[in-house]
């Protein structure tokens, strides 16, 4: 059976090729020529990567993940091979706790001084930045289709409006939704007080009556398609789906009560094999011209002070709009409190 033989030979060749790739452990002593990055999709413009590769004469191997949780599950269960990862603040503290991060010698990152000290002061998950360098600060907000909704109050309580029932979604993200509710009640997004959380739960349950679904992934597509007229989500998702011509029809705002804020950071994994190159990369990102390019691509406010001179596009919201927002911090064992409440909201009663 010729086909059978062909298949066997093909497989052996395939195996052989792969077994060679496995012998990489001796290569770390050679000059670092490859950098392995694990990042969110669309979070870094291709141009920035290409420029880095050209300038330093190296190759970037770039893999992507859809969420912090999946990235963490993979790394925790034993996925190795990456040098630089981009976790959000609360995950930085978790990963530090689990001993997954390498400490960063800030003297090797001169451009770190470009980062806005006012922002750095707000950071509690890694005060002093021993293991992480901030990348992007952003917040979820509310996006409204101006045509469909008429006048509205720029507040989280837009979700309590029953006249918009069935046209709204909120993120399927426990910290984001509960954080929003906590803020409308005047509490902290990192509250560990069971009474405050119970009140927040009731707020969300009233909102839930008007929601069509909880969606953390496709809200942007649905919003752009006209399925929803009010969504709770991230600006860059929504505007990536929209053409620039239609942008005036929508209004993205950070509600006046403030909300949960997040900071995505660059970290170096403890078992990274190309640490020198990783440090060079992190330093490169905070070069003002480079960082400005990233801000323009994502249309987010710049936390790098000199870069603000170079940005060409106006971000979706300014740093001032975020003044009332708080960073999401890790909750430790109290995560279970939030879990229980979120479960009651999603599938109970």
């Amino acid at each position: 059976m010729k086909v059978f033989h062909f298949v066997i030979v093909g497989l052996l060749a395939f195996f052989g090729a792969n077994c060679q790739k496995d012998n990489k452990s001796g290569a770390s002593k050679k000059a670092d020529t490859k950098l392995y990055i694990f990042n969110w999709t669309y979070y870094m413009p291709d141009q920035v990567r290409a420029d880095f590769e050209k300038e330093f004469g190296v190759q970037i191997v770039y893999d992507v993940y859809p969420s912090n949780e999946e990235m963490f599950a993979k790394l925790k269960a034993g996925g190795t091979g990456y040098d630089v990862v981009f976790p959000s603040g609360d995950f930085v503290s978790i990963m530090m706790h689990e001993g997954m991060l390498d400490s960063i010698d800030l003297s090797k990152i001169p451009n770190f001084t470009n980062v806005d000290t006012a922002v750095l002061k707000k950071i509690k998950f890694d005060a002093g930045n021993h293991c992480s360098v901030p990348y992007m600060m952003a917040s979820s907000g509310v996006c409204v289709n101006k045509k469909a909704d008429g006048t509205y109050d720029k507040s989280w309580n837009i979700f309590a409006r029953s006249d918009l029932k069935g046209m709204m979604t909120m993120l399927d993200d426990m910290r984001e939704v509960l954080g929003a509710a906590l803020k409308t009640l005047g509490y902290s997004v990192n509250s560990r007080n069971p009474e405050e959380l119970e009140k927040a739960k009731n707020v969300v349950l009233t909102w839930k009556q008007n929601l069509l679904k909880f969606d953390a992934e496709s809200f942007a597509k649905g919003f752009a398609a006209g399925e929803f007229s009010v969504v709770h989500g991230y600006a860059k998702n929504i505007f990536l789906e929209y053409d620039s011509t239609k942008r005036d029809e929508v209004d993205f705002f950070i509600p006046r009560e403030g909300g949960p804020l997040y900071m995505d950071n660059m970290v170096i994994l403890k078992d990274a094999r190309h640490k020198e190159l990783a440090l060079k990369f992190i330093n490169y990102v905070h070069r003002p011209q480079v960082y400005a390019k990233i801000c323009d691509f994502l249309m987010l406010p710049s936390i790098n002070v000199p870069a603000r001179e170079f940005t060409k596009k106006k971000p979706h919201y300014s740093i001032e709009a975020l003044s009332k927002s708080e960073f999401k911090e890790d909750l430790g064992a109290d995560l279970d409190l939030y879990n229980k409440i979120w479960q009651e909201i999603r599938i109970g009663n």
Partner: protein
Amino acid sequence: MHKKRGFSLVIFSCVIAFFYIPLVVLIVYSFNASKSMSLTGFSFVWYHKLFFDSRDLWSACLNSLLIAAASASVATILGTLGAIGLNWYTFAFKRYIQVVTFLPLILPEIIIGVSLLIFFAGIHFKLSLLTIFIAHTTFNIPFVMLIVLSRLEEFDYSILEAARDLGAREIDTLFKVIIPLSMPGIISGFLTAVTLSLEDFVITFFVAGPGSATLPLYVYSMIRFGVSPVINALSVVIIAATIILAFSTKNIYKYIIGR
């Protein structure tokens, strides 16, 4: 008989329509000038991007095809042989094998993915395309085995007896009698395995090594930021390529079953 054919033809056509309507929509959007869901105009911009600006996408695509072909082949071979063994013989571990080869079907994918990752990490087996191949073969095996088994159950055993009486060795019986007569089952199993492998995201995400992205990994991670219509264009290209391949392999199929 004719009326039954009519009814089944109607259902079959409905099923095909059901399958292809989303495909038509997909193709339409691949020619849409803008990224949004509203049709703004006819354009080749996504095809242009696909062929000139998507190096990562093509390497992911190639990985997917390679792994699908390899894992489906190995799963088909292992599964077919296993099904033959289970169907007609009794031996020491039969019960064990029956239960165990059936289990990957039941376990949720994310659990299979994480447990395989823990296993590979535990034995210090480096993550790479090879680990994806192993994972895919593992979850493909029950599908192939069950399909071939159900085919073998209707097998007329007297043909095998006749072959043996005529002096055929076991290996001849295998290649000249059993396999040709179970070909529809083997092909169904193989096609199922290829489809499952091409589509898999969850298991692949956990066991993929750095730099060994497959197509689903590439696409699913886009989900939060809007999946680009370049993927639509790619899908159209894949369909066209498959159809061309299918028609040219019709002859190879005839050769395999020796008609």
